[in-house]
């Protein structure tokens, strides 16, 4: 085993171990806790960069650990893993900065940051899983570690929301567990690297079983991926503090579900088998319903975070739809949307958090004139919102373009229509916010800011960074190192040159 | 010959009676007596099955029964000690176990 094989567990450990230490720090040790948080986030990012370098030069790190007779945890780093792990590590650093400022003075910060670190470790584990069992392990751990963050405030409403969250995610977990166990019982350990070879051997003898397993797996993943009808937990979970909503429910948890669906369709079943079994039509159907339903529900929400939550429900199914269309262009669009939607959505949630934390504004109807009081926050919001609508050259446009092109290339013009309709609906619920913020006079006096900036610099910098990145990845999408190029490489690996 | 059947049969009857008493009678001391009856029944069954009508029958069941008797005595002692303590705390409780 070379040192490179230890990189995946090291990346996992870089947040796991400091997280465990943070649990035991007394509340008063603020500096130490902040230092640990930031140091581990930076360390993780550095390690990910090293991993990328190793893989770029042809290395294939792999690490295994035996849990019990016949079942091992396995971590590896293929192109899709690297994409997701880089996204997670990068956004974690940004969110850590944000969370430190947001929770200033709040109780139980050691508990919060302890679980926060565990969540990121679980997300990294999901990204780097080499087989379905390892994926299941980290997926379930993510459910458990996010719960204390959702209920952090300890109010009756938070706990009720947390209960709803658990009912949905644990039920999904049971379905995923049974599906994984069934497939493993039929075919042995299900390695992602095989690209569907496992299922290919079975497709003639057990087509019915394979369809049932697909349904179980996707149903389990659909909960976290917020696909209708199991999306209900996401708006409810918005009661969590803004950093939680931002990173976890806009990025880590929901992306884990979408990532899982990509893995199941392309690396467990493979495009050919999935198409032959006829399961992709169903997937596309549910994705379409979700895209439209989410956007429609977003229109009627006055609470800003809930509107953003329904927007997430809708936008996330772009990825599912792209996966179900099963063409190279659509897959490229789906994979790159993982990154782009993450960047844009986290920006929106950071801005929503700034508004509620600094001004106490939580509803769209209260946002009149807020653009003048918090110009930078709202500029970042505007960039992200326009990107979600699909305005060039921001990130969202790029992913939509590829999804649309992929739909046309496979003859699924209806999917293009869905994307266009969704774009219009996005405009319908985002543009009014911008209008209210910038063009309506303020209805009441805002609290004056204490410093030169509109709010704490640690609350301001993260959304500006992520908004800038959303713009950058769109503008420079043609560059070889962009997420788009990366997604293209992944699609080429799956479909062949 | 009849003794080959009689002893085990008596053992089974004692077991059944004891079990019935244990389950149906509310008085705690009656329950203790009932369980002693069950233990006796089981012992009788053990020895009775091992008895083949001759003088030199199998000694192993008899050894087991001896141990069983000791166990029953200790068990009875534990039960009585607890009942005694209970009756001090709740004098009527002995007659109506709940």
């Amino acid at each position, binding site marked *: 085993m070379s040192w490179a094989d230890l990189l995946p567990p090291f990346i996992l450990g870089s947040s796991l171990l400091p997280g465990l230490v943070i649990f035991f720090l007394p509340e008063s040790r603020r500096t130490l806790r902040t230092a640990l948080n930031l140091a581990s986030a930076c360390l993780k990012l550095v390690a990910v960069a090293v991993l990328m370098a190793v893989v770029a030069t042809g290395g294939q790190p792999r690490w295994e650990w035996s849990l019990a*007779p016949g079942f*091992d945890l396995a971590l590896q780093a293929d192109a899709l893993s690297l994409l997701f792990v880089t996204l997670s590590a990068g956004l974690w650093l940004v969110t850590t900065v944000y969370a430190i400022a947001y929770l200033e003075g709040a109780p139980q910060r050691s508990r919060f940051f302890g679980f926060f670190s565990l969540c990121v470790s679980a997300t990294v584990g999901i990204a780097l899983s080499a087989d379905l069992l390892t994926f299941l392990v980290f997926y379930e751990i993510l459910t458990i570690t996010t719960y204390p963050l959702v209920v952090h405030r300890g109010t009756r409403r938070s706990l009720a929301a947390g*209960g709803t969250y658990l009912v949905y995610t644990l039920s999904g977990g049971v379905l995923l*567990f049974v599906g994984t166990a069934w497939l493993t019982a039929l075919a042995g350990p299900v390695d992602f690297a095989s690209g569907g070879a496992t299922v290919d051997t079975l497709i003639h003898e057990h087509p019915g079983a394979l369809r049932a397993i697909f349904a179980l797996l996707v149903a389990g993943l659909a909960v976290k991926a917020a696909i209708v009808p199991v999306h209900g937990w996401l708006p409810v979970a918005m009661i969590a503090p803004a950093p939680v909503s931002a990173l976890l429910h806009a990025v880590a948890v929901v992306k884990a579900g979408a990532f899982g669906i990509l893995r199941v369709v392309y690396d467990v079943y493979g495009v050919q088998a999935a198409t032959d079994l006829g399961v992709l039509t169903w997937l596309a159907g549910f994705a379409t319903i979700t895209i439209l339903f989410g956007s429609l529900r977003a229109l009627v929400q006055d609470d800003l975070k809930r509107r953003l939550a329904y927007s997430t429900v809708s936008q996330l199914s772009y990825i599912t739809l792209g996966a179900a269309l099963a063409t190279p262009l659509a897959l490229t669009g789906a994979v790159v949307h993982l990154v782009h939607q993450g960047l844009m959505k986290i920006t929106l949630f950071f801005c929503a958090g700034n508004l509620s934390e600094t001004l106490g504004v939580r509803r769209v109807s209260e946002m009149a004139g807020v653009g003048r009081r918090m110009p930078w926050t709202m500029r970042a919001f505007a960039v992200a919102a326009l990107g979600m609508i699909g305005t060039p050259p921001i990130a969202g446009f790029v992913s939509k373009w590829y999804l649309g092109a992929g739909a046309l290339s496979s003859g699924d013009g209806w999917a293009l229509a869905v994307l266009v309709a969704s774009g219009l609906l996005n405009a319908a619920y985002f543009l009014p916010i911008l209008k209210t913020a910038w063009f309506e006079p303020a209805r009441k006096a805002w609290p004056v800011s204490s410093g030169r900036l509109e709010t704490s610099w640690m609350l301001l910098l993260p959304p500006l960074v992520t908004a800038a990145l959303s713009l950058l990845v769109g503008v420079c999408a043609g560059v070889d190192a962009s997420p788009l190029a990366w997604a293209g490489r992944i699609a080429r690996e799956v479909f062949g040159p | 010959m009849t003794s080959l059947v009689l002893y085990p049969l008596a053992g089974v009857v004692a077991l059944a009676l004891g079990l019935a008493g244990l389950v149906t009678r509310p008085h705690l001391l009656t*329950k203790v007596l009932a369980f002693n009856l069950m233990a006796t029944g089981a012992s009788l069954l053990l020895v009775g099955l091992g008895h083949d009508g001759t003088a030199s029958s199998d000694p192993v069941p008899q050894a*087991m029964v001896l141990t069983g008797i000791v166990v029953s005595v200790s068990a009875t002692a534990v039960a009585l000690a607890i009942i005694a303590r209970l009756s001090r705390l709740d004098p009527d409780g002995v007659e109506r176990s709940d």
Partner: protein
Amino acid sequence: MDGPVTASVGWLVAAPLAGSVATFLLRGRRGASEAVLLLTALAAALATNGLVARIMGSGPYTVEIGSWGAPAGIEWAVDDLSAAFLAVALPVWIAATIVAHGLLHSPRSPRDARVFRKEPGPTARTFWPLWLLLWGGVNALFLSADLFNLYVALELAGLAGVALVATAGVLPALQAALRYFFANVAGSISFLTGVALVYHRYQTLDLQLLRSAAESDASTTVALALLGAGLLLKAALFPMHAWLPRAHAAAPAPVSAILSALVVKAPVYLVLRLWLDVFHVALPPSVLTFVGALGAIGIVWGSARALRVERLKSLIAYSTVAQVGLLFTAFPIVHAAGSRDARWGLVFLAVGHAVAKASMFLAAGGLARAHGHDRLDQMTGFGAREPLCTYAFGLGGMSLLGVPGTIGFSGKWLLATSGLEVWAVPWVVAVSASALLTAAYVWRVLAIAIRSAPEPAGTRPLARRIAWSAFALAVLTVALGLGSGPFVEPLP
């Protein structure tokens, strides 16, 4: 006979029994009793260590006590199944002993005397002899290799358990102890009757010999039914569970921990041993289906009751009923699959429950001592006051749930994959879906813990070693979940 090595297993029973006598004679004197406890723990640790090393090195083995062979003498046997239970029993005992010592001797401030007055409860003089007797009895249960030895060990552990429940001293505890006593005794006598029938049929009681001689006929089946009925009653399988919740709730917390973790687990192990191993040729498969179904009902019943009871220890006790039900729903899978993986799945579940349940009861004991009671509706917000106990309870609950990383997950995974290989679908579904019911009552407690609320009057700080022992056991469920691979691989 390899002298010291074979002798060392004997210490697992001899040391606690000798310790029991010693503490009795010492009348609970401080210092001397601690010394006896330490020596006993040390002897047990060394013996367990030797046992594990030997079985990993050379496989199953038997030990003759006093060098008298069967059938005149007593033989003990160690195989992978019993080794797993004995190895896990050691940390559970040590943690529970630390907590018991802490609770017995925790300082009571005079300021609280007005509130708490003289609390009835165990005293060192009566507690330690009974505690060590239970320790020895439980070890003997896992080591015995013949049916009569098993009967004696069952009675020894049962009586010690009953007496320990009664040491709580209050009326509900005495009543619960008597219920436990009568249930125990009924079970033991059923077992003894089964032993009588087996001896009459096969003329031997040695498990090894019985395994090779067993045949499927009427008298064997009746004997198995009697043996099984007795054991199922002692394991508190629905509907013969009624004695357990009250006994485990009323007992002092460390006693509840050992009762739920080990004393209830031993009959499950024995059913596995007798029905699926020694006498498997004589077992009608429909019996396992019936027992599995009872287990499934037990899961639902226990979990439902756990959601409604008012006291924390009652909740944990009903959780034991539910988890025992879960173990029995796994029996049909083990029988149908017949594979090593399925058996280890069941063992992992059982062992995982033992450690997790013990840690939950110890945490509950700590919480009850801190609050002066264990009524859930008056403990709101205890997460902030007693974080270690809360994490212990939570982590233990995660293992019961089967969250990956814990040994509970390893057990469920092995059972699910083996079960689906032989299409034992209803049982696999029961094992997998039980997590949701378990989550419901674990969440109930955690929600109460996290709820921010002012500190109730009359709470007092908890001795640190109590919280840490509970937490250490909870961490063990994760350590076992992640690290048992290297230990289990080499075993057959």
